[in-house]
């Protein structure tokens, strides 16, 4: 690891001020991706701004039609939160299935979204639920937030503060794990809200998480697994690597989407 400065501000304002002064500083949230890359010297930073002491990032609020979760909540907290289990149980299950116990006890919602790993679980949930990402500067709809592999709409110095999820009528996430990393080889999040069906896929897209509009349309007509049995995502939009070809990922998306619908219905 190369040497770096370290700051641990107690307020969002102080964090933002520091980031403004130190253009190349990186925000440290759960650190489950950032710290290993620093240790392996794959990344280098002049300064880390540790936001783990900022109370404002720890909000949990369940309202009639909305669940708001602070960006600083650990996966293990989301997985076991009463509000989440009541409001969007599928989201609690997503959090419970991320990484391993150690990762879940450190990794955060905001950190996972800002990193936007193309095989991460949370991006599928956020996109699949049509959530809104709030930052210290603005609100960004999920559809505008994820812009590519490890890329988001966040500007330099911008910090995610919370995520607002509209409560769906039903939802489910099915992940087919990469046997090595246990990230999603393909993961499909399906939700049915008030007149809206969303299908979001992680692990498979060559530009990161994406929605499957054809499936959404067919499920909008009839929310049942058989509605999408013939709906395919073309392999040319998908990722191919040593773990899976694009054709196989395309096949898995259809299988898992049907299973997610069945799970949401059960």
């Amino acid at each position, binding site marked *: 690891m190369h040497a770096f400065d370290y700051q641990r501000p107690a307020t969002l304002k102080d964090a933002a001020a520091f980031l403004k002064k130190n253009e190349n500083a990186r925000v440290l949230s759960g650190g489950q991706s950032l710290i290993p890359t620093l240790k*392996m*010297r794959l990344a280098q930073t002049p300064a880390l701004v540790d936001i783990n002491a900022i109370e404002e990032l720890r909000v949990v609020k369940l309202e009639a039609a909305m669940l708001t979760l602070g960006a600083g909540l650990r996966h293990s907290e989301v997985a076991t939160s009463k509000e989440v289990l009541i409001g969007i149980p599928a989201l609690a299950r997503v959090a419970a299935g991320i990484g391993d116990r150690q990762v879940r006890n450190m990794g955060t919602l905001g950190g996972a979204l800002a990193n936007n790993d193309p095989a991460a679980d949370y991006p599928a949930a956020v996109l699949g639920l049509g959530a809104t990402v709030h930052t210290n500067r603005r609100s960004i709809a999920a559809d505008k937030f994820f812009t590519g592999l490890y890329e988001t709409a966040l500007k330099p110095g911008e910090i995610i503060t919370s995520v607002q999820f509209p409560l769906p009528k039903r939802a489910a996430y099915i992940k*087919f794990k*990469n*046997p*090595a*990393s246990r990230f999603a080889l393909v993961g499909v999040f399906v939700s049915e809200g008030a007149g809206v069906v969303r299908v979001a896929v992680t692990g498979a897209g060559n530009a990161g998480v994406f929605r499957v509009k054809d499936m959404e349309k067919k499920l909008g007509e009839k929310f049942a697994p058989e509605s999408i049995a013939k709906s395919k995502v073309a392999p040319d939009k998908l990722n191919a690597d*040593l773990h899976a*070809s694009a054709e*196989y990922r395309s096949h898995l998306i259809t299988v898992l989407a049907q299973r997610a619908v069945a799970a949401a219905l059960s």
Partner: protein
Amino acid sequence: MNAPHAPYIGQSIKRKEDQRFLTGGGTYTDDVAVANQTHAYFLRSPHAHAKIRSIDLNKAKAAPGVVAIFTGDDLAAAKVGGLPCGWLITDVNGQPMKEPPHPCLAQDKVRHVGDQVAVVIAETLNLAKDAAELIEVDYEILPAVVSAADARKPGVAVVHDSAPDNTCYVWSIGTQDTVDKAFASAKHVTTLEFANNRLIPNAIEPRAALAQYARGDDSYTLHVTSQNPHVERLLMTAFVLGLPEHKVRVIAPDVGGGFGSKIFLYAEETVIVWASKRVNRPIKWTAERSESFLTDAHGRDHVTKAELALDKNGKFLAMRVHTTANMGAYLSTFASCVPTILYATLLAGQYTTPAIYCEVTAVFTNTAPVDAYRGAGRPEATYVVERLVETAAREMGISPADLRRRNFITQFPYQTPVALCYDTGNYDATLTEAMKLADVAGFEARRKQAADRGKLRGLGYSTYIEACGLAPSNIAGALGARAGLFEAGEIRFHPTGSVTVFTGSHSHGQGHETTFAQVVADKLGIPVENVDVVHGDTGRIPFGMGTYGSRSIAVGGSAIMKAIDKIIDKGKKIAAHLLEASDDNIEFRDGVFTVAGTDRKKTIAEVAFAAYVPHNYPLDKLEPGLNETAFYDPANFTYPAGSHICEVEIDPQTGSTKVVNFTAVDDFGNVINPMIVEGQVHGGLAQGIGQALLEGCIYDAASGQLLTGSYMDYAMPRADDFPSFKVDTKVTACTHNPLGVKGCGEAGAIGAPAAVINAVTDALNIKDIAMPATSEKVWRALNSKGKKTK
């Protein structure tokens, strides 16, 4: 629970070593820290194959905290030799194998990604890494060849100029004519072509070393993660550094797993031993996990065509096998014997196949060296035999168990056509028991229930044999071994009756501190708490060949038994003196020397005390003290064997395969500690099933880069990949060692892969599928089958 008491042999005593391991009290090499120590970091090649035009160290040498930097030129100038290969294979033309130089730091050329280019020694590891980033190496990148299948194709990269066709040797065993004739007359021939996938060992503790030079007496102490410290010292001093053996002490303290990968002499520890005198300071090096992936000797990596000839009744007539084995970029310590001596000699399996021919071509490639990995040759052989047998059974419409039984060896000793002579076994007994435990009778019902749930079930057998207890030194020598394969043991009674056992075997997860103590306590009739076992230190142990090839209890245990016999013999003489009887009249039983037919007796503790406080002692006839050393060279290999039965369930929609039942009934001869044996079997099964379904080392064919260089991409099995194993043993005692033991360390990894693939191919109703049988491969197999039937 009450403390266990004699007889200890056969009891599942809790492991003595676990208290310290589970409470963080172990001392691993990286835990050893000494005053004034420096840290080494190895700059490694980022290329699979390149000429080194120049290395500029100027900036790096000026970096903060740098003590010294050395390159291959420095080693060459100091006349440091290359790493030796410990086994000479003579090829089909009577010529010695090609042994290209294996420099400790690259000279002129790098030959695989991770090849050592320079060592930076600095005050801290971080400073060493900082300096290494400042080394400028000018590489001329060359084309690379990585696969065994490509290595001999015309026009591919040449790894060593001294082996222009990338061939280390072409070796054979058996008579080709006889085998060809048997094939010509066969009623049925089963043919399979497959790869035995390359594996990365992944011991939990990465390799590490701490080298200390003592100016006072010009000696060295090396702490190192080794399975065999004496062999490490012998190879390092005699073949590489030219140091007197008595000036080097090698200590292998607690070692966190080896699986073969820590048998070998590696460049890193050799370089830092040499450098510790140059810088006159201790040097510590610990591999990072990425370095383990790149530079620990890998395992397996065969490409094979295998054929089995059968008569109309399913009797095996002959077997013909052609294998190409990947040696990697350099010959590692025992690389050459793995795909030959430890492979082709096992092709008889448990069967009476009268004629076997096997030809092995060993090739160099631009990959990490390949050497022994849990099972070492025997898993590859078992895969060949058991895939052939299962496939032949299906092709001929005979049940796989029945076909095996028709061909089982039932008369012992049995001389195979491939050099080995099995002393004992009962293959039908393990198969019958395994079929009962696995509830084979209920399988069809389970298959139907699975089909009702839309799932595919399959059942596969593997009835394996292995040759362990390496090895009779004279036979090994005739086959090319450049070392003996005996073992040494020493029993030291202390004056107050407790015992220290010194063994040349090395425990790095096997539980010797418990098992060996059980043997000694049992045979000497003393409490097991009074016995401690010392291993892994050339400064304390007479000699040792170390632990590999499931040899510890069979060879190391036998050496201890011989030392125990000497102790008892001497004890009888002392007791005779104390009891005023003749030596012949003394009996020893349960720790007590008795004058036959009387109640006059002395405990062994009393005898030990008399030996060390010899006031009343036959000093004219007998030396004081009770300390005996023995060396044991085995008369034969041991032949553990067993039956594995795997049941899988496949989700045809995703191709995902789940092992739902795995049964292993093994014959390891007599068992000292059933719990430890079961643990060894579990670990072996995890690695064997891992090979079949998950693990696979992949190098990029174009660039030679290691694509599976971390746990993000290399699928290590985890506990939840497995069902609860059903494990049992049947015993036929080994006929030629004093404990009647055979060894259990590798069996799981040897038997399991074929059982799993036999189950997967059964479920899919296909002839073959490549390992690891990933979900995509299974899905593709199902798809292409669908197309064919259309």
